[in-house]
Structures are given as C-alpha cells and as structure tokens.
C-alpha cells in the first residue's frame, strides 16, 4: 500500500517535472525540472531495491551533469525566452511527431492489458542493484570494459579542455585583441 502510494508519488513527480522540462520557457527552469525528474526517477529505483543505482543517478546526473548543463545555460546567457514563431511548417512538424510517437507507444504496448499486469520479472537476487553485486560483476566479468571506461573518461577530459580553452599565451592575447574571449570581470 505504502509502496504503491510512493510509486504514484514518484511517477507523478517525474511526469510533472518531465513536462516542465519541455513546457518551461526559461531554460534555467527547464534544467531544474530535469534535475527533479532525475530525483523522482531515483525514487522509482528505490522501489526496485536498487538503492545504490538510485544514488548514482542522483549524484552523477542531478549532482554533476545538470550542474554542467546549468553552467552552460548561464554561460550562454540564455535566460531570456525568445518567442517561437508558429509557422505552418512547424505546426505540421509538431503534429507529425505527436502522431508518430503515439503510434509508436500504441505499437509497443499493444499487448499490455488495460489493468495493471506487470510483465513477468526475471529472477533476480536480493543483492541485485547493490554496490556489492555491481562490484563483483564489474571487477571480474566486465573488467575489460571497466578499464576501457577509464580510457574513455580520459579521452573526455582531454577533449573537453582542448575544445573549451586554448591556454597558449599567444593565442589568448590574439583573441583578446579581437575581443573574442569572454570577459573576466
């Protein structure tokens, strides 16, 4: 009973804020709605007893990815909403996407009956989703992908800093003279 209530609470919040992401006109409000969507989804993870994964979701997505997103929004100075012109082409485009998505959903859920019947769950152990189970798998069976993940992350570090900034003094000076570098207060 309590769990069902909790499910509906999280599901409603996730849906509500998910809607907020696309409806909010201020990009900052959108981004924060997305943060709340992640937190609500983490609540759904709790229902599956995947507490560790729930917290990973909060720490990485709400705590790190979205901070970056918000920094980008501030950096690009997008806080003013620009009115969207609804041309005929755009209207048809939106209509097409909506119809297509609806058709896709109906196709995917054509077998689901109207009442709530859950698909049969694969047998999972009580440890599923816990840090220990993940560690046991990650550091034995999936050791190679794990090590490759570090290479990927390193590539991401290098790529990010190379794209974001050129600290070579000559280039900075060159950019400053053309006024291209963001001002540094």
């Amino acid at each position: 009973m309590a769990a069902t209530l909790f499910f509906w609470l999280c599901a409603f919040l996730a849906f509500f804020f998910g809607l907020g992401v696309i409806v909010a006109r201020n990009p900052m409000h959108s981004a924060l709605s997305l943060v709340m969507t992640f937190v609500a989804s983490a609540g759904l993870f709790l229902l599956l007893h995947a507490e560790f994964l729930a917290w990973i979701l909060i720490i990485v997505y709400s705590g790190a990815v979205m901070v970056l997103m918000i920094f980008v929004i501030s950096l690009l100075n997008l806080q003013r909403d620009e009115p969207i012109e609804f041309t005929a082409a755009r209207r048809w485009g939106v209509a097409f996407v909506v119809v297509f998505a609806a058709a896709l959903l109906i196709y995917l859920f054509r077998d689901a009956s109207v009442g709530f019947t859950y698909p049969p769950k694969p047998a999972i152990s009580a440890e599923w989703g816990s840090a220990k189970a993940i560690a046991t798998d990650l550091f034995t069976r999936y050791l190679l992908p794990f090590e490759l993940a570090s290479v990927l992350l390193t590539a991401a570090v290098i790529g990010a800093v190379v794209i974001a900034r050129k600290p070579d003094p000559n280039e900075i000076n060159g950019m400053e003279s053309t006024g291209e570098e963001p001002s540094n207060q």
Partner: protein
Amino acid sequence: METPSEISVSLEFSIALIFILTAVVFVGGNLILNRLFRPRNPYPEKNSTYECGEHSVGSPWIRFNIRYYIIAILFLIFDVEVLFIIPWAVQFKKLYESLGILAFFEMFVFLLILGLGLAYCWVKGHLEWVLKDRKAAGSNPGI
C-alpha cells in the same frame, strides 16, 4: 509472478522519507510564520537591485569566465571516477579473497589512466586559474 502489492520500499528508506517530509513541513512552516508577521511595504527603490547604493548598470547575467565551465566538466568526469572507485572500495576485501593481487592492480591501472588525464590538464595549464602571461603582467587573478 510478483503482484504489485509485493513491491516495497525498505523500512529505513520509508523512515528517511518521513524525515524528509518533516524537513519540508519545517521549512514551509518557517515561511508561513514569516508571511503572517512580516510587514509589506515595497516601493521601486527598495526593490531595486543592490549595488552599493548606485543605480545598477547593465545586465546582471554576465557571460562569466569559461574556466568555470572547464572546472565543471573536469568535476563531472572525476565524479564518475569516484563512483567507480566506491563499489570497488566496498568490495575490496572480498575481491582480494577471490582475485588476489589483481583486485589491487585493476584499480591501480584505472587510476593510472585517469591520472594521465589529470596530468595532461596540469601540464597544459588547464588547472591554472590565472593564466601565465597575465600573472607576469601582474593583473588581477580573475573572479
């Protein structure tokens, strides 16, 4: 086959949730208390942006320094790294029992590769908050 009634949140999390609701009620109560007692007398000068008594000039939403963005992206990547280390740390002793010294070296290699990334940023000066040429010119350290 499980029925929906069998899904449950563990007891500890339910209690934590109640505590969180307590916190929300407490914060809401504070705001309501404040609303009941506070005077309300706004006028344009009072509601204007504080800038040490001067009229505010320009938009407050400045385009700030890109170094904040670099720090944010480095944080994101190293945060993911920390979250890889944490399950390894918790399971370290058990892994050592089953894998032996490999349990140590697999994380060592992981950290070494990521350490290379950090070393790259360091050597290339991306961790510097003050650029070298500006430091030489004696300019201010930035925001």
